[in-house]
């Protein structure tokens, strides 16, 4: 049985697909984290976000996170899906869904997966404003 679903796509992410993947008769709870494109950054209005990826490596790093989450938490299955390309305000760049016998593990696995993804997965976003654009995190 496949316990992880990893995907990077330029198509719209599908929450139902993630849910259907993790859903399981042995599970008492499913937790989801959905990242959404916000309309401002530090008080400045964002018009859109452009996500670029080093896709083969990003897939491997996302797979590592999913495998580690299965090891660390008592979860049954986990899906980590990320979008690439140009996204508009309210669009969804990332969905993480985990199922578990008991809810706590599912919550923890989602938090672990998004926190780690933001640190290790080679994906970059460029914020577009009405008067220019900037790579996020490039100048810490």
């Amino acid at each position, binding site marked *: 049985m496949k316990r992880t679903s990893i995907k990077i796509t330029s198509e719209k992410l599908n929450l139902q697909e993630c849910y259907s993947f993790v859903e399981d008769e042995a599970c008492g709870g499913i937790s989801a984290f959905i*990242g959404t494109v916000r309309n401002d950054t530090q008080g400045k209005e964002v018009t859109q976000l452009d*996500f*670029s*990826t*080093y896709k*083969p*490596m*990003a897939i*491997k790093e996302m797979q590592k996170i999913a495998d580690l989450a299965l090891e660390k938490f008592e979860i049954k299955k986990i899906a980590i899906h*990320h979008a690439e390309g140009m996204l508009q305000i309210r669009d969804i*760049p*990332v969905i993480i869904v985990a199922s578990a016998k008991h809810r706590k593990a599912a919550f923890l696995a989602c938090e672990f997966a*998004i926190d780690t*993804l*933001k*640190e*290790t*997965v*080679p*994906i*970059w*976003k*460029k914020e577009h404003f009405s008067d220019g654009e900037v*790579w*996020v*995190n*490039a*100048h*810490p």
Partner: protein
Amino acid sequence: MKIETLFFGITTDLVNTSSMVVEVDRILNIAEFKIFLKDKFPQLENINSYAVAVNEAYATDDVVLKENDTVAIIPPVSGG
């Protein structure tokens, strides 16, 4: 020795390309390759830090490069 080098995020803009094959005349580890790159592209100084991946896996400074390795320059990531 030929090393395919990939650039991502802000580094693509800094060097004006997303990939190139660079020729190095001796065996280098990652730390030495970073110095080589900085000489070739002084504009990389404009970012505080970047990680390096070799053949799609993060590599530490002591990893030694081999012929036909693919090196990726990974500026601070910002997915999610």
